[in-house]
């Protein structure tokens, strides 16, 4: 991660496009904290690529001043992987919603974790499909009424943190978009972590999720930091991650592997062997290529 010498303020990460989210949407906090984290870490906007899927949350790249790809629903992670492997000097952030990441895109996250692709993945988890106007999501709580479950959700919500831990993720955190300072710190840790980092963020949808509101969260949120949780303790992390539901909502850094695995870019022999692929000269001479032909002769 290259750092810039000029001073970078959060506003330097603000595009000219005002976010089109509903007033009060949790995603404002997610954006805000990310702008702060990048400015505090002094990562120049042109060295950042934010890759999203499709959803309200996935509109974020348009509001964040950096390079961006606003891709397909559920697919930010493979796009981000391709970018990172092509240019390992870039800071690559994948982002999107709970439907995008834990529904249609779930498999990509788990595989990216086991490969340890060096990206930060931020999920704006509002427990609903926002952009499509309020259907059940894989993180909707049981019995939640939505447009597609008018009598209440009957499917056990997914536990993304447990899944990430089970998949071998070395940095697993959860934040709340109502606590920007706390969230900023989680992002900073994630961005500094070399390897796949998951930051799940409870980011209330004020329009379609009338249940998991700011108030609902504020009444339940407990910070791991206040609980004396040791983020290097995998078993404790699993235990804490397991607790979800109506009583308590835990946020903070669940797990950071004290002996992190090397990221994919260090293990792929070609990528590890030199500067970013994109900076390597193209072209091969006939003489250089000759052994490839000789082998077939």
């Amino acid at each position, binding site marked *: 991660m290259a750092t810039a010498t000029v001073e970078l303020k959060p506003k330097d990460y603000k595009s000219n496009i005002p976010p089109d989210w509903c007033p009060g949407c949790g995603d404002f906090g997610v954006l805000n904290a990310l702008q702060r984290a990048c400015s505090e870490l002094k990562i120049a906007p042109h060295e950042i690529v934010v890759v999203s899927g499709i959803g309200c949350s996935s509109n974020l790249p348009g509001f964040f001043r950096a390079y*961006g790809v606003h891709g*397909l629903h559920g697919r930010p992670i493979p*796009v981000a992987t391709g970018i990172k492997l092509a240019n390992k000097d870039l800071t690559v952030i994948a982002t999107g919603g709970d439907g995008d990441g834990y529904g249609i895109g779930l498999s990509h996250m788990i595989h990216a974790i086991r490969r340890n692709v060096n990206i930060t993945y931020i999920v704006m988890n509002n427990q609903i499909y926002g952009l499509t106007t309020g259907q059940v999501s894989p993180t909707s709580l049981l019995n939640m009424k939505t447009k597609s479950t008018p009598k209440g959700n009957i499917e056990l919500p997914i536990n993304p943190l447990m899944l990430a831990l089970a998949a071998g993720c070395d940095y697993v955190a959860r934040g709340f978009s109502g606590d920007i300072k706390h969230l900023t710190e989680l992002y900073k840790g994630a961005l500094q972590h070399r390897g796949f980092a998951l930051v799940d963020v409870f980011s209330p949808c004020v329009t379609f999720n009338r249940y998991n509101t700011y108030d609902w969260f504020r009444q339940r949120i407990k910070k791991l930091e206040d609980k004396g949780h040791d983020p290097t303790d995998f078993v404790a992390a699993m235990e804490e991650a397991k607790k979800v539901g109506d009583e308590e909502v835990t946020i903070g850094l669940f797990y950071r592997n004290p002996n992190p695995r090397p990221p994919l870019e260090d293990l792929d022999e070609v990528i590890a062997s030199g500067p970013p692929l994109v900076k390597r000269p193209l*072209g091969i001479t006939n003489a250089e290529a000759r052994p490839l032909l000789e082998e077939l002769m």
Partner: protein
Amino acid sequence: MALDDLVVGIGGAAGDGIASAGDTLALALARQGLRIYAYNSYQSVVRGGRIWLRMRIANRQPLSPGNVLNALVALNQEALDLHLQEIQPGGAALFNTHRVRRAPEKGPDGVQLCPIPVPDLAPVYKDLPVIQNTVLIGALYAIMGLPFDGVESVLESTFARKGQKVIDMNVGAARAGYDYAAEHFQKMELALKPQPTQKRYAVMTGNEAFGLGAVAAGVRMYVAYPMTPASGILHWMAAHGPAVGISVRQPEDEIAVMNMAIGANHAGIRCMCGTSGGGFALMTEAMGMAGMIETPVVCIEVQRGGPSTGLPTKTEQGDLFQVFGAGQGDYPRLIVAPTNVYDCFETVKEVFNLAEKYQLPAVILSDLLLSEHHETVEPDRFDFENPPIDRGELITEANGGDGEAYLRYKITETGVSPRAIPGVPGHLYVAPTDEHDEDGVLISDIYTDPVRRKRMMEKRMRKMVYLKNELPPPRLEGPADAEVTLVGWGSTWGVIREAVEALAAEGIKVNHLQIKYIVPFHGEEVAQILSKAKKIIMVEQNFGGQLARHLRSETGIKADGHIRKYDGEPFEPKHIVAGVKRILAGEEELVTCVSDEPGWRYDHPSFV
């Protein structure tokens, strides 16, 4: 009459090592300056079943598997039983007396039976049964009357890494077979002329040529999920890519493959991916994304028998419309069907230059036949330096700029907008799959604007006009005043060409138009050429006549006849020859061919 063109068939079961026996034979012949074309008919099973490899050998490059069988190497009883009757007079049938216990007294008229006591000739056989292949190849070589050193040199290089003992054992086995055959059997009457050794050929598959093409094109990453018959590219890349700076990754599925390839190209490297029809079905959404965000990407789609899982190890040209219709909505794209092994190599280079120049997704449509058959090629025709890599209007460094804001999707005359890659200062933008304005800002959400939308759509599609102008129109091969014009696409070029020659030999004048560029299509040029045709006959390896439909939609031209094959086995020239004659005789308008020789057939117990 001494044959100057013969077909050797090697038959056995999966696991018998037929492919490597074929490789040895092919390379031995190629090193002696002979030309081969080999096609392996195999089944979707790892052990057992039937493998049937046919190798055509000649002084002039054969362009198809040929029509007949001249020599048989039967690795088991069944192979002999099935194929013996197909052997032409003057031919021979070789087999291991230990595997083939029920050999007939005599073969068909004029066919020499060559039982070979492999256990006696190569005592190692009892521990290493695949040695039978080496013995039989040696014997075949003797019967073909070729000098042994071809086989010897290949065995030496193949086993070089395993040490002298292994080399000696193999060379010894081959030599024993060679000597035994020389002593006990007659040589076939052949007019094959080994060439001086400075004229050496390489033996190459289409998939290997694609890999080499990628090397030449400056590809820095190959991404694929395994799928027959595209896996050969992955295997070649995994084995050879790293040494020439190509990273090879196998993601969790084809959706990830295509999205990752787009990401990598977006970040400024050349990244290629490959798959077959079923995998491509999962890539279509992302194809549209590449079209919309104007990121170049190249995918090789190697067709196999469909529909659905279909015939995983059989050939077909059935995916034209899948690729044509990939993804919702209209977006610019390039679809190219290379016509032979050299063309596989050239096409990758060409298509990357075009995909980057016009910033669009490109699909190279191959098929199992083209991708997996082996043929001898002249190594010097593989030019890695030309045409040079042309990356189009790519901004890889801050250009100081004139202070004007960078418009990633600037509306231009050609539709092409200079493309900055992430990391370059002063060129920030978002590439969105939603409709967007010149600066990349969405015009699908609050900034809806039909006028801009229309302009952006037109900007993107305008690229197709300029792209088309760059592509060479197809050329008619053969006599202008022909009775019949055969029209094919992609991999069937060789077999059609041979059919044309065979028909000419019978006094039927035929010419030939092979379509390589599917999209954009040279509608006017093709219509112009075909307007002069007396009788248009389409030759396609599919059920529906996909090119015929495409041709008609582009030109309005309705072909006069159709020759189709969709049984999974490739066309042989004889199928086309017979088809043309039947159509000319007015017997049928649509001739469907089938490989119904007994060797192709296999009965099964009933399920219930």
